[in-house]
Every structure is written in C-alpha cells, then in structure tokens.
C-alpha cells in the first residue's frame, strides 16, 4: 500500500541544542520515535545542522538516520553575524521568544540555507518532505511536502512581537500554505485560523492534536523537597506553569490574585509562577512586592522536570490565564497529574480543556479571582473535574495514535499532489540562485514561459549562459548575455505542463568575491518570470506577490 513512501526527509535543521526550541522540539522528537516504529519499511532521513546534529544521535536506528545539511563553518560565522544584525534590528527581543517554536533561531537557519543549490531531495530519492517546524525550506517542486502549523499568534497580537519577527512569521506561514501538499494543525483553533487567514482549501489541512500528555509522568514517590525549599504547603498554592511572555498575561493574573487576597483568600494561599529568570521575571517580582504580595507570589525560576511534576501534583489547582495558545499542553499535563484546572476561554483552550476545566475570560480579573476561589473551596466540583480530567488526559496521551494520524496525512499527500504553477530558486530581493525550478500546471491554452534577466555590470563574470531542461532533457539552444545587459528567455511549453529547470552559470558568492557579507550563491538579477497564455492571461511567478 505504502510502496511509494519509501523515503521521507524530515527537516530538523531548526532544532537547536537544549531547550531553546520550547515545546515543539519535544513534540517533534516524540513523534519521530513513533513514526519510525509504525513504518519500519520506510527510511527516514533527518536533515540536521551541525549545532544539534550530535544531540540527535539517539534517534538513529535501522530506518532512521541523520544527514547534516548545514555545516559548522557556515553556521558559526554567518550565524554570529545574523544574530548581531538581528539584535540591532530588534533591540527589544530577548533570547527567548514567545510561542511553541523559537522562530528567531529558525529564521537564522532559514537564512543560512543556500536555496536553489543542488537537488538535495531528488538526489536522495526522497518521496516526501516533512517540515515539522513549519518552514518548507528544502521544498523541491514535484516532491509532496507536509508542514505543521502551530499558531498564528503574530496575527492576533502583533504588538507582542518585533516588526521583523511578524513579517518573518507571516512569510513562513504563507510559504508553508503554498508549498505544502498538506498541512497539519495542532488544534482546530489553529486550523480554523489558518484556513481563514490564508483562504486555504480546508481539505488540505487536518487537525492532529498533540498527544504526549505523559511527558512528565506523575509519580507519587516524588520528593516534596521542592515544596519545602519554596516554603509551600501541599494543596495551599496555585500553579501557573508558563514562561514570562506577554501573552501569558501575568499582570492580569497578579491583579486577580491581588483582588482575591483582598477579598479574603486565606493568608497562607500562594501563587507559584514558574518560568525562566530574566527582565520580565524581575519586573513581575518587583510588581508582586509593590502589591505587598512578595511573600505570596513565588518565582522558583527554571525547574527540572521532576520538580515541576512535584509542584504540579501537590498544588491546589493549575491556573492558566493565557491570552493565546495554539494548543495549551500544560492544561493536559495538569489533568494527567490529577489536579483541577482553571483556564482561559479563548483560542485553543476551550477545545483542549473541553468541559473539564473551569473556564474564565482572561481579560476580566474578577472572573479569574472567582475561578481561584472555586479551585480552593469547591471540593465537590474539583473532585469531579479531577476525575474527568484523568480521562481527558488519556485521550491526549496516545503518541502512537498521533503518529498514525501523521502517517495518514503523508499518504494523503502522496495521492493528492497539487499541480500548480510555481517557481523556486530566486530570492525576494530579486537575485536568482544558480538554478530556477519551475513547476507548470497542465493547461488547455498554449502557454509560454518568459523570464527577463538583468545582469549588473559589476558581476565578477563577463558573460552568462542559461540552459533550460525538462525532466533532465535539454531544450532549445542556450541563451547568452553579457554583464550590464538584460535578456529575455522565451520558452514555449507543452500543454501537459511539467517540471522545468533553468540553469544559469556561472554563479558567484559575494562574500568570496570581496562584495560584502552575503554568503548566498547568486547568478544574476531576475526582473520577472511570467506565464503567458494564448488567451492573453498572464500568471506572474516572480516577483512573488505572496512574499511580503
């Protein structure tokens, strides 16, 4: 049945060492462990970068191997420069960015990859490309591609991101929508957001929930050391497991907690906010002190999983007032740990929490305060919610089921290839790499491909040559032109469409030619690339209107 899914490439180049990728990395690696088990006949090639290549060695197996595609040399020097230039552009960005995927690091990696050089996937005989970190960086026309979409927070809350970051996320999202044969969304909420904002055909995007609730297994033998160290008593504190990102809404939670304390919440009840130390934590700690709540709001800083599990297992309840989630994993983790949950009634949270959590509007502090009082005082309600929560958590713990859902999506992509006009190999700034790859849809009209090149007069090479091939076969005579000149390639196409390549030689790397820092392989500037139909219709493939 799956004869044709013999080789799957998985783009893991966005993976960074340690915890820098947030929850997405944990999800992706779990998914891969199960995918290779349920498809033993399929070869999985993990595309990696040098920074995390070794760390991922444990994934190696009979049908899974790594292949480093971004090497150390490029990574070190260019990465450093990109980080520097990025921090100049966005001085307010801190190391950690909100969201389940760390897009800053992903951006760096995307920029490092030399788009258009070689035919990585075709050479490896890849049948499908899977991009679990959204960006279809290694997309090649003709190879079915599946991307995972996490959330579109940058659309709802652009003010929580640097401007640069918003446009990068937008581009990544649009590229995924256009290039991917099929998409996976981690919740119905994310799926609906994607469909409405990119006008997607709903058949192309499926919800595949995160199913990994047992990531931090609850174990009664956990030491309560952490409680003693933090001065906490069992069942006398609320827990908010979240980093200090703005959309996590800590100021509102503190306001609500302040109101509840004022309205008679017993004096020994505390609020614990996990999350990494940094500027935001410092501000929130000072705020807690201005509210005379310094001894009631506890900031334990970074915690190992076992400590976090112990904190969760022994709390009065988890309170989760986030303004935006693509999924909301901590809600499921709390249910698995057998503690009651109160969470926001927005974005993906009602879908994930279903009727188990106490829901509140995260913009109304009196509602959050009311929810805390219910968690503390309504024993019967909480007991019932704990019971239904355990069942709910079980539904979200079957990682193998999640892997099967992905496998079905891969199969769907194989049989539902999109046949549309598209081109890769050129950059948004107008430069072309050494090879343009063009996929042409079948058409009833006669069609012509027209590409206009413009060679700056300072190119290192005096003369350029353009060869065109279709499925490896040379077409027509080569086109020659000199630097300082422009030239138009006009190519009549077959009605059945197909896959064309336009090779432009020679190419150069500006950084190696003493022309600045640019590390890309470039051939010439591209003014436009159009498809002309004999009925007068024109389809513009470049400049790319979607690349904002």
């Amino acid at each position, binding site marked *: 049945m799956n004869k044709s899914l013999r080789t799957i490439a998985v783009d893991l180049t966005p993976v960074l060492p340690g915890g820098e990728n947030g929850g997405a990395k944990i999800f992706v690696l779990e998914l891969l462990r199960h995918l290779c088990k349920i498809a033993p006949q399929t070869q999985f090639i993990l595309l990696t970068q040098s920074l995390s290549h070794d760390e991922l060695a444990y994934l190696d197996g009979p049908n899974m191997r790594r292949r480093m595609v971004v090497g150390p040399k490029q990574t070190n020097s260019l990465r450093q420069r990109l980080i520097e230039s990025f921090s100049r552009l966005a001085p*307010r960005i801190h190391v950690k960015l909100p969201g389940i995927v760390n897009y800053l690091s992903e951006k760096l990696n995307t920029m490092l990859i030399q788009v258009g050089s070689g035919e990585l996937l075709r050479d490896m005989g890849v049948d499908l490309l899977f991009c679990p970190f959204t960006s279809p960086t290694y997309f090649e026309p003709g190879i079915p591609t599946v991307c995972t979409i996490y959330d579109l927070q940058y659309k*709802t*809350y652009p*003010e929580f991101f640097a401007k640069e970051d918003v446009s990068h996320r937008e581009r990544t999202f649009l590229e995924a929508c256009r290039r991917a044969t099929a998409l996976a969304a981690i919740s119905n909420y994310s799926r609906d957001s994607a469909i409405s904002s990119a006008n997607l055909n709903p058949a192309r995007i499926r919800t595949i929930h995160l199913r990994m609730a047992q990531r931090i297994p609850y174990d009664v033998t956990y030491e309560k050391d952490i409680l003693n160290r933090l001065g906490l008593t069992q069942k006398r504190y609320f827990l908010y497991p979240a980093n200090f990102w703005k959309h996590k809404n800590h*100021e*509102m939670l503190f*306001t609500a907690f*302040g*109101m509840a304390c*004022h309205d008679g919440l017993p004096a020994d009840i505390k609020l614990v906010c996990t999350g990494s130390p940094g500027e935001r934590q410092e501000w929130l*700690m*000072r*705020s807690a*002190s*201005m*509210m*005379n*709540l*310094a001894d009631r709001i506890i900031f334990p800083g970074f915690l190992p999983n076992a400590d976090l599990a112990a904190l969760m297992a022994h709390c009065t309840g988890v309170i989760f007032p986030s303004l935006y989630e693509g999924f909301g994993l901590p809600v499921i983790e709390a249910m698995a740990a057998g503690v009651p949950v109160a969470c926001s009634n927005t974005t993906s949270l009602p879908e994930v929490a279903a009727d188990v959590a106490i829901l509140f*509007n995260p*913009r*109304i*502090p*009196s509602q959050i305060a009311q929810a805390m009082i219910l968690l503390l005082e309504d024993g019967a309600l909480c007991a019932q919610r704990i019971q239904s929560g355990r069942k709910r958590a079980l539904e979200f713990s079957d990682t193998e089921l999640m892997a099967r859902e992905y496998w079905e999506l891969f199969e769907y992509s194989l049989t539902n290839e999109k046949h549309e006009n598209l081109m890769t190999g050129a950059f948004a700034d107008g430069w072309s790499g050494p090879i343009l790859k063009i996929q042409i849809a079948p058409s009833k009209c006669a069609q012509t491909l027209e590409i206009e090149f413009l060679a700056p007069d300072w190119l290192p090479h005096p003369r350029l040559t353009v060869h065109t091939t279709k499925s490896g076969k040379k077409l027509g005579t080569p086109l020659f032109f000199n630097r300082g000149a422009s030239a138009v390639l006009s190519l009549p196409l077959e009605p059945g469409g197909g896959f064309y390549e336009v090779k432009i030689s020679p190419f150069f790397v500006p950084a190696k030619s003493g022309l600045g820092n640019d590390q890309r392989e470039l051939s010439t500037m591209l003014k436009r690339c159009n498809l002309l139909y004999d009925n007068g219709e024109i389809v513009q493939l470049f400049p790319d209107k979607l690349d904002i």
Partner: protein
Amino acid sequence: MHIGFDISQTGSGKAGCGFFAHAMIQAMLELAPEQRFTLLPSFGDFYFDALMPVINPYSGKNVQYGPRHLSRENARTFWNGTEAEALLGKPDIIHSNNFWCPAQPLSSRLIYTFYDMGFVIDPGWTTEANRVGCFEGVFRSAMLADWVVAISEASKAHYLSVFPYFPKDRIRVIFPCSRFGDSSAMGTRPNSLKNIPEGGFWLNVGTIEPRKNQRRLVEAYSGYLAKGGSSMPLVLAGGTGWLMDDFKQYLMELGIADSVIMTGYVSDEELIWLYRNCYANLYPSLFEGFGLPVLEGMQFGAPTLTSNAASLPEVAGKAAILLAPEDVNAWTQAMLQLSANRADRDYLGTLALEQAASFDWKRSAASLLDLYQEAAGSPKRSFLL
C-alpha cells in the same frame, strides 16, 4: 516648579483623554504663569499622532516643548531608554494623560491620569490591541505612579477595587471640564437637520458603539413611537464605531429607520446647536469614567436623561432623570412622560444649567496644581525588591 505634561492626544480628532489634557493645560497656563511647563507632544509608544510634531498648540514665555518624534519607533527608543528623564531636564513632575505609563523616574514625581477601566468590565467594548495597551498602562501606574488622578469618584473606587493595595492617599479625583469655553454660544445647525424644528428632536451624542448602548436606546425609542409618543425624530450625533456595522439594518428591522437621523461626526459648533435645541439629551451609556456629553449638554441647558451606572450619577447630580441602562421599558416610559409634559422638560433644563455650573475648569486646574505641589513636597513611592 518644572512640570512635564503629556499633550500627545490633544491633536485634531481628540477624544475624551485629549479633551482632558487640553482643558487642563490651557487652564494651568492661565492660572500659573510662574510655573515652567515642558509640553510633551510625544509620550510613550502606545499612542502616536504623526501630526503632533508639527504643531505648537500652546504658547507662553514659560512654555517649552519636549522631543518631537516623527515615528512611533523613534518615540519608543526615546521613552523606553534610560535617559528620558534627564533629557527632559529632570522635571519636578511628569504627568501622563494617554494611558501609557513610563518607567519610574529617579527624581521626578510621576502623575498618572486614570480615566476608566471599562475594558475589565466588558473587554468587548474596545479592540483587543487597545485593551492590551490600556491595561498595561493602568497596571504599570498601580506599580509606578507617585500619584493617580481619577476623573470621578466612581473611577477612583473602581481603581482601588482592582488594585486594593494601592495607597489610598495617593489617588485624587479631579473632574474634567467641558471643552466649550463660552456657554452663551448659539452654535450652528447641521445641514442634515434642516427641516427639524428647534426643540423638536431627541438627541444622543457619542460614537455608535456597544458601550454607549444605542441599540437599547433605539429599541426604547421604537417602543415610545409605538405607544403614541409625539413623533419627534431621534438624532444620533457621532461616527459609527466598534462592532456596529449592522446598526442601520437593526433600525430597519425596528421599522424606525425614517425617524432616526444619523449625522455622523459633527463639529463643535454643530454640537452646541444640538445641545441647545434638543427636546432632551438621552445618554444611556453602560459605563463611563466621567460622561462629558452629559456635562456639556447641561452647559447649554439640555434636559437630560442618563444612566445610573458608574460615574454618571456624579456628573448628573439631581439635575437629570437617572435610569438603569439595561431597562429598555423604563426609558420608553420616561420618554413618553417627558414628551407629554413640557413643563417638566423645561424645569430639567433649568436644573441642568445649575448643575453644569458646579464643574469649573479653573477649580479643576487649581486642584491639579495643588496636587503637583504636594507631590513635589512628599517622598516618591519606593519600588524596590
């Protein structure tokens, strides 16, 4: 004293916050020529008016202007930098009027005007982006401001209920005042009301949006017509705002589209004419920090029906008929009674003029100057770990 005063929202197209800052600075410049003022056309990165850098709205020997920023990014860099206080010349007072709250100054006393927090009552009353910025500003003020100026007792009480730990002796009520200096002005009839007799229409002033409650108002008005109320039209003076795209459709459904006149945005002159010549000013708002249309209407003798919610009873005093804003039938009944009883209506007009006189911009500005003196002479709130 050297006073840094945020005038960022006083440009053209100003709303409530802009009118407050505008009236206060005008009055203070007149009352206190001995004080030095640095007016701040740019203040923070939440509100940005691209036209502010090119105008000098207030002048005087004792007036200078703070930095003028041509883009929001420039404003952000300046105000989020650590040098802002020093670059402003370390004023004794820095007074925020646009919801944004700066970092705590080292020596300047930070004064923060608090208008209202309707957005924690019903977040749907504003856009999410605006709610995020406003809440951030108000929360920061509760941490960082040395003094908070509330524009009504109701606003002050709400602030203290949301931030119960805020020192109660550091928040003071200073009422805004009418934007209209000349109470004898006659105003100009709007073109859209050419054929309407003076004293022959109901009036509602304000952007058409959920918080202003015009949906229930037109429902009450339709009940009033159905029950035989005299056929005066209802004039809605204000632009169409937030989430009200289907408002006209709603008027059609009620069958009163022909009796409701929507003027759109009106000029100050036209507004004066409307207040002066309405049969009564109807203001059923669900929530207000103050309620300027009530005070401004009263200034021109408009008989007033308003809501009993939030700050409105304070503004209206005993000079208006107060009704629950959700009780459509009560509004219908009150309109029927008032339309049938001209003498009652005229008496309300007399009371309105008296009530309006109890709000005086000089008194508000003088108490703001007193507050500055007191703030400069008392210690800052400490913000330490």
